[in-house]
């Protein structure tokens, strides 16, 4: 579904991503884990077109997307739910969701999609008319995810959805992510919550200092000595 190969990216002169290659298969949860500053968000930004890679290719559903802009990429069915939620705080909850359906095909069916998103996150319907800035942290994360689903994506890339949430809400977020996979939406998940992530995802890779250190099924990673020591503190 998504194939990244030999990707290199820079911020100015700083080389942040080094020769990254991996593949995300259809209807799986593929997790990307790594310490703060490893380059996870940068990798997602390169995939969704917010950052132009210096070299390498990104192929989505058989089509090269590494030189497309973000608005073209979302139209192909790839939705990026960014780190830190990035809500439109001066808009209502409803308008934020509508923005998620901005592409022409999604706009046409937004009433129907909205129903689906409200089923997943009933609290958003209750909060519909409120300004996004008035929501609690957990509700804001649900809104960010709901907004990301409004484009009816085939692949959803989600950057640290559990960050800053209470444990109960973290479980809730992981539950929703699993249910999305069960509805055949492929997920590329970036998380710092390594234990939960490896228990939820199908396959994963580890990013260290901008380089891929390990990849495999989650069970393989859970069994790896390096992961147990460096990420699980065992």
């Amino acid at each position, binding site marked *: 579904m998504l194939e990244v190969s030999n990707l290199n990216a820079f911020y100015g002169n700083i080389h942040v991503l080094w020769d990254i290659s991996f593949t995300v298969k259809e209807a799986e949860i593929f997790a990307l884990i790594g310490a703060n500053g490893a380059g996870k968000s940068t990798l997602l930004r390169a995939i969704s077109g*917010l950052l132009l890679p210096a070299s390498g290719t990104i192929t989505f559903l058989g089509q090269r997307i590494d030189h497309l802009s*973000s608005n073209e990429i979302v*139209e192909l069915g790839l939705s990026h739910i960014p780190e830190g939620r990035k809500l*439109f705080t001066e*808009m209502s909850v409803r*308008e934020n969701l509508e*923005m998620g359906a*901005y*592409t022409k095909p999604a706009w046409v069916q937004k009433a129907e999609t909205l129903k689906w998103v409200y089923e997943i996150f009933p609290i958003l319907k209750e909060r519909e008319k409120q300004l996004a800035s008035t929501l609690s942290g957990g509700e804001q994360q649900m809104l960010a995810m709901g907004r990301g689903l409004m484009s009816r994506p085939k692949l959803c890339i989600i950057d640290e959805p559990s960050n800053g949430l209470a444990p109960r809400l973290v479980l809730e977020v992981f539950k929703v992510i699993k249910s999305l996979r069960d509805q055949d939406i492929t997920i590329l998940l970036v998380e710092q919550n390594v234990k939960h992530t490896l228990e939820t995802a199908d396959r994963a890779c580890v990013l260290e200092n901008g380089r891929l250190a390990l990849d495999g099924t989650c069970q393989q990673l859970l069994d790896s000595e390096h992961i147990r020591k460096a990420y699980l503190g065992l």
Partner: protein
Amino acid sequence: MPESIVNILDIAIGGLLLGGIYALIAMGMSLQYGVARVLNFSHGEFIMVGAFSTLTLYTVVGINPLICLVIIGPVIFLIGFLLHRTLFHQLSLRAPNADAYAASSILASFGLLFIIQNLALLGWGADYQAYTYLNFGVSIGGAIFSANKLVILGFSIGIGLIFYIFLARTRTGKGIRAAAQDPATASLMGVNINRVLALCFGFGAAMAGIAGVLYSMRIPLNPAMGTQYTIIAIIVIVLGGLGSIPGAFIGGLILGIIGEVVTSIDPSLSMAAYYFIFMLLLLVRPKGIFGK
């Protein structure tokens, strides 16, 4: 009606008229500054071009100024759109960061100011020119108002409100508001940022042009007339709150009414009063009425 009431009504209508014009001009500038991030010092020149084009179309070709509105508005929109696509977009590609772009785009807008003014001098000459249109009295409850005043008032406030509804309700309008708040995230939603920036620059220019078409019915025209409106627009968007479109609209109406009241006392004081309000705002409430 007693004369004092007629006077007050006259000042109120005059204030709303001036305010409606200011509101249009300031909404235009607010779109260019708040969304497209260009502090456009040539904004007033688009007013001047709108006004002179109306004068020429009316006095030479015989096209009624209200018809001019639907010709000149779209033409100036297109000019603004293309200006952004070429000049300002190129500048933004060349600027290493937002601050550098703020500086280079201001300089470019000064360049535009001189180019447009000089072309206008060449085409229309340096003398003051005027025409009359709908310049007859209409009686409202015993008070007499010139018809063009009422038409200008109706059109400027109407266009301001329609644009506001466009921003609030339509897909493109929401995209513009999202792009104003967070361009990168808006583009993740599917908003074509370059297109939206050019659209906003075009809408901003068109609003200035439309203000020029309307106001040309009442004031003498001259190629240098635009500059003071650029300054007024800056004062209004500071008054309303930088980047706030409703703020620009309401701020325009308020400044217009203040202007008319001051003018009724002494016409030469209105610009001084605007500057005074501007200074006061910067000292007391720099974020303006609707600012955050």
